[in-house]
């Protein structure tokens, strides 16, 4: 149910027409003749294309401004897409699509959001809004993030009783939930790939993952123990 409504909205919310360089690059690569591998060079190139990440300059520190309307529309889109948790969608829109923040800056802001009470992404919205447009930015980001989800959740609340028993609706919801879980996993793997953590940072990530993901220890306890540890690790490795 939610999935279909979202899909029809996305076209409206996504005003961005990115050039399809990946496809163009793919065509250029495939038609090109590799001097060493001869006519089978395209296989290697197709493989590299399929499994590589696009070239990305977003790891550079970006010093740019983001206008009030950009902030509002960006967070409106994040809220609308935010199926199964907002963080992966926020990262997709903020880091990959609009490049407001680098991968590192985003992870750091998400981390601050994580140790404070409240949803990490809502705290991140506060920090990002304040950073680009002060108090007005905060209000715009929060309102943008919540407006459409509130409309959708109340609509679903009204029609849920009538549709919840339909097998197709149930199957669709289960499929979408499985997809959302994969989205979070994939986002974590992609972030790890781009952030290239140092050995001790990787150890901290794994500790947090094991404590919360595998052992299911309470988050406040894990945060209380790991924050001092991770600061010490950053100091030892001279990361700041």
């Amino acid at each position, binding site marked *: 149910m939610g999935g279909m409504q979202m899909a029809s909205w996305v076209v409206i919310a996504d005003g961005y027409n990115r050039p399809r360089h990946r496809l163009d690059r793919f065509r250029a690569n495939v038609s090109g003749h590799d001097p060493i591998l001869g006519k089978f060079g395209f296989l290697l190139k197709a493989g590299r294309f399929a499994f590589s990440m696009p070239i990305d300059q977003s790891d550079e520190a970006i010093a740019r401004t983001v206008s009030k309307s950009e902030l509002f529309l960006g967070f409106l889109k994040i809220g609308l897409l935010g199926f199964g948790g907002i963080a992966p969608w926020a990262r997709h829109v903020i880091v990959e699509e609009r490049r407001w923040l680098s991968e590192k800056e985003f992870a750091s802001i998400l981390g601050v959001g994580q140790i404070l009470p409240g949803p990490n992404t809502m705290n991140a919205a506060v920090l990002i809004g304040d950073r680009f447009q002060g108090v007005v930015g905060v209000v715009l980001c929060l309102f943008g993030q919540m407006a459409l989800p509130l409309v959708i959740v109340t609509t679903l609340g009204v029609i849920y009783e009538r549709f919840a028993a339909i097998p197709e609706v149930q199957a669709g919801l289960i499929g979408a939930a499985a997809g959302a879980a994969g989205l979070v996993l994939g986002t974590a793997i992609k972030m790890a790939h781009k952030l290239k953590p140092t050995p001790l940072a990787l150890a901290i990530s794994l500790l*947090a993952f094991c404590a919360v993901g595998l052992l299911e220890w309470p988050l406040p306890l894990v945060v209380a123990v790991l924050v001092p540890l991770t600061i010490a690790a950053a100091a030892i490795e001279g990361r700041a």
Partner: protein
Amino acid sequence: MLDLLLQIARVFALLSLVSIGGANAVLPEIRRQVVVVHGWMSDSAFANVFAISHAAPGPNIIMVSLIGWQLAGLAGLLVATLAIMAPSCMLAFVAGRVIARWSERRWIRLLREGLIPLALGLILASGLSMTRMADHDAITLVISLGTAAFVVVSRRNPLWAIAAGTAANIVVLHVT
């Protein structure tokens, strides 16, 4: 009515201040307050609210808004939403200003640097726990892994992968 709104505001404003980790962390306490302490909802009605808020986009905390809506209509929705948002957001605002103001201090730089691996580990953990909840059979597992692979190799909108997963699970229902 006003009494009910005040109660809603008090319950969720207090929860807002202890909700480190968002809605999932305080879910048991939300249920205890709504079902046991105040008797606002039955257990099955609460389970419905949980299911609906997971089918909708937005932060998981939106379930609180839906509880407010079901208890007291639009006024309830607004009061519950503001109550769960305002305290934690104000705290985040102050914390953000403090961090920005002292951004040159070494311990602030170390903190920001150190929170990166922590955020990474925690998002991986939430991916695992969502996978555990969502994947009951081989097909859902394939959907999860396929979506994860899509996100890793492509910059395209992940909605494509999720729509494909939704459609696939509906198709499977009719094939088997």
